[in-house]
């Protein structure tokens, strides 16, 4: 077959040909099912812009995005940080940004990686199907942006920032971990408008002049019942702090609730991404590797391009070990790619070890079917727990270090050998457990008819404590949203002993 390109130069026709060639392989041979794609060609400046808004193509105005932009720009200008080759957005059509500076080979790599790998993952993984609405996200972003702008015009930038700052501080605690219902982002705008209209229509200034009914006048029993019922409506404990404030804060006004909701919706939108870094990048890296090698086998990219590709590929999947100066934790690309390759190998050329570890699919001869199933049904934690085989553990020479607060040094407890495999796989999976990614903080109690003080709890396990200063500052933001006093009790999970109580500062 003819070469798709020769050398570094490319034009739109080349991109189109590359895309078609990749599509033939990815969809035709490998059976991937991506969303339709929209490739957007951008400059490095625009890539920096996209960085500052978490890769979203449009976002409401807020100073924190300016801060991230200033930081990224400074790092980039000084050469401390390179730019990603691409950014891909979980939307339908799937939008992939590619940079004009890339060579033809890199564009092919990026198209294979983003437009087929990530795209397939977004469309098929259960978390994304459950939590995100790819059709609606772009419209929702446009709505959020214009809503924030309207609020700024009506109520002033400072008032809007006050709420957004507070909501941003709590966005890690603004996530439902268990699905209630599927989001339909297209309905969000309608719902907000109705809320607004209802409020304006039902506003009655006379109601404000009525004296408060004195609670003491009621018989105590009736009051108790009322209080119990009111509390039951709060459905405590509630771990989604933003949801709690949005629904139950006595002080927030309608538009403020909507701002909180916008931040919450976006945090929820990113939640699947945080849980599937290894699986998602592993999928995309595996796809680009297979597609590029296949293109070369078909004689559609020259040898030079293959070498250039392998060079980029191997730097992407570098994993320095813990003694290295460059070590900074796990590289999700490296770990994900190694696991995917191991699954492929176990399907095609199994040995005794594979039959023991992966009896479900070892030797089934269908690597793509097996991998598609993995990509559709697992997040990082499950992927590692079930598909991290001994060969990958040996490949990375994994060790388990025990870090005990009382000990002056880390102790190697397990290594990559027969007695250690199970424990290593299970502990590494724990590391990717979403519960360990952000502190779990719950609203435990609210004094509804008295001071309206909200009590939060944080269970400290294994001596892991909250950062006190950060907690105090974050509580101040929570207080803004709740409108009344808040406090946070840190308890030892093992003994239920109260360790400390944080108050806003």
């Amino acid at each position: 077959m003819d070469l798709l390109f020769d050398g570094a130069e490319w034009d739109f026709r080349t991109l189109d040909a590359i895309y078609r060639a990749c599509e033939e392989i990815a969809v035709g041979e490998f059976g991937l099912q991506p969303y339709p794609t929209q490739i957007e060609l951008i400059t490095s400046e625009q890539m920096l812009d996209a960085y500052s808004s978490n890769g979203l193509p449009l976002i409401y105005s807020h100073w924190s995005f300016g801060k991230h932009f200033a930081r990224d720009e400074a790092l980039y200008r000084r050469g401390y940080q390179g730019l990603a080759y691409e950014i891909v957005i979980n939307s339908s059509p799937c939008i992939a940004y590619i940079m004009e500076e890339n060579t033809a080979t890199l564009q092919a790599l990026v198209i294979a990686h983003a437009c087929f790998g990530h795209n397939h993952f977004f469309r098929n993984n259960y978390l994304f199907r459950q939590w995100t609405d790819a059709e609606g996200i772009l419209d929702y972003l446009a709505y959020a942006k214009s809503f924030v702008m309207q609020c700024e015009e009506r109520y002033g930038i400072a008032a809007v920032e006050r709420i957004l700052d507070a909501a941003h501080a709590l966005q890690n605690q603004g996530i439902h971990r268990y699905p209630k219902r599927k989001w339909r982002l297209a309905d969000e705008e309608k719902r907000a408008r109705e809320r607004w209209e209802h409020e304006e229509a039902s506003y009655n200034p006379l109601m404000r002049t009525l004296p408060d009914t004195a609670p003491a006048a009621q018989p105590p029993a009736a009051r108790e019942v009322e209080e119990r019922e009111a509390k039951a409506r709060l459905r405590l404990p509630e771990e989604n702090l933003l949801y709690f404030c949005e629904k139950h804060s006595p002080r927030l006004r309608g538009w403020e609730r909507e701002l909180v909701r916008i931040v919450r919706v976006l945090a929820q939108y990113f939640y699947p991404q945080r849980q599937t870094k290894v699986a998602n990048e592993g999928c995309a890296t595996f796809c680009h590797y297979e597609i590029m090698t296949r293109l070369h086998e078909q004689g559609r990219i020259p040898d030079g391009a293959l070498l250039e590709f392998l060079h980029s590929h191997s730097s992407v999947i570098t994993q320095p070990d813990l003694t290295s100066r460059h070590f900074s934790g796990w590289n999700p690309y490296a770990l994900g790619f190694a696991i995917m390759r191991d699954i492929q190998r176990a399907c095609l050329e199994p040995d005794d070890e594979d039959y023991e570890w992966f009896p479900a699919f070892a030797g089934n001869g269908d690597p793509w079917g097996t991998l598609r199933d993995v990509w559709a049904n697992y997040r990082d934690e499950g992927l590692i727990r079930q598909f991290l085989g001994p060969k990958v553990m040996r490949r990375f020479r994994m060790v388990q270090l025990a870090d005990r607060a009382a000990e002056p040094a880390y102790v190697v407890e397990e290594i990559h050998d027969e007695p250690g495999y199970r424990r290593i796989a299970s502990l590494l999976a724990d590391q990717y457990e979403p519960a360990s990614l952000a502190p779990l903080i719950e609203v435990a109690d609210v004094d509804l008819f008295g001071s309206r003080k909200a009590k939060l709890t944080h269970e400290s396990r294994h001596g892991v404590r909250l950062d006190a200063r950060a907690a105090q500052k974050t509580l101040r933001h929570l207080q803004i949203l709740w409108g009344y006093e808040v406090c946070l009790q840190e308890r030892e999970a093992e003994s239920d002993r109260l360790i400390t109580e944080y108050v806003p500062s």
Partner: protein
Amino acid sequence: MVIVDRRANPQGKSLPNRQRFLDRAREQIKKAVADAVADRRVSDLDSGAGVKVTAGSTEEPSFRHTGEGDHDYVLPGPGTLNRGDEIEKPLGGEGEGGSRASKGGGGEDAFEFVLTHEEFLKYFLDELQLPHLLRTSTAQMDLSRPRRAGVTIHGQPSALDVRRTMRNSLARRIALGRPDRGAMEALQTEVDDAIDAGDEGREAAAREALALALRRSARIPFVDPVDVRYARHERQPQPATEAVMFCLMDVSGSMTEHMKDLAKRFFMLLHLFLKRKYERVEVVFIRHTDNAAEVDEETFFRSRETGGTVVSSALRTMAEVQQARFPAERFNIYVAQASDGDNYTPDREQVASLMRGRILPFVRYFAYVETGGSRAVGRHADRVMETELWSTYTALAAAEGARNLAMRRLTEVRDVWTVLADLFAKTNRVAA
């Protein structure tokens, strides 16, 4: 698949957010800018600057764990570790602890970025203003701007207000019952239908109605001269705030290089500030040794000269120039003087009388900056010997209760900005 070329899209989508961020970090940026001013050479004063921003007003807190407590890490090893081996804390490159700290987004505490030229000047000069600036004269009528002021029935075709004209036209057509196009078409159809139906009576009636409508439409014009409206503009006089700043610099032999540098920096900043913030402020440069001369900007800042010191010469020149070109009833008059404070002692009386009689009554603000050598640094800064000029001015200020005479000492390059900002702060505090 679609390929969209976004390269031509407007750049700088993040600029508004950047602006908000800068406003938020205002205090830190101002401090950084002041530091930058001290470090630079006089000629780069108005270029951009790197600014280091630490947490504070731009902090984004979140609940996060500290690294304390018991953890189990599974990590890629070097292959030489065995059970029971110990590794000292912390791991090379901070290991897990490092990545955890930045996970919450609160780990990045300080970072540095570069302010652009425009931003630099904005933050730099933001807080300054000329004190007691008054509207001195409305006589100069060239200071007026055209302003929209309603509509009129006469005017130039270019000022035609199409929307209003058409609105009037429509109102008139409705009021007079001019048949519109739809009505005409309906009448025409009615005629055609009647012909098709072969009903002569109906045809005649329809034709008559159509003819009437046609006559009516010819009689009542679509746009009539009475509909026409023009936008009216009015010239509105702008308040004339004319001001002049006299920069008086001592370049005599007693001024060391250090003092001259201080004085030049001071005037450089002052000049920059006036140029940026006030379009219509004239600046007069006067330098003096034992005699004074009005010079141009270039000479004032670049050339060298030396000689004795007679301050009254500069004051006299200033007063002369003021009387000749800048009458006090039209101009806001400002004076900034920099000197090491030495003066020829017999000149003292002259200085005092000039100030009393010909200067202080007319000026809005007289800022005197005394540049000292390094002898005045540190603990003894406030115990420095009073110089000739300083004591003269102090006496003047006390005697006259002159609220428009401000005095500051300036000894270090890093204080140039502070002194200037102090003298021209928006809440103009005048020397006690």
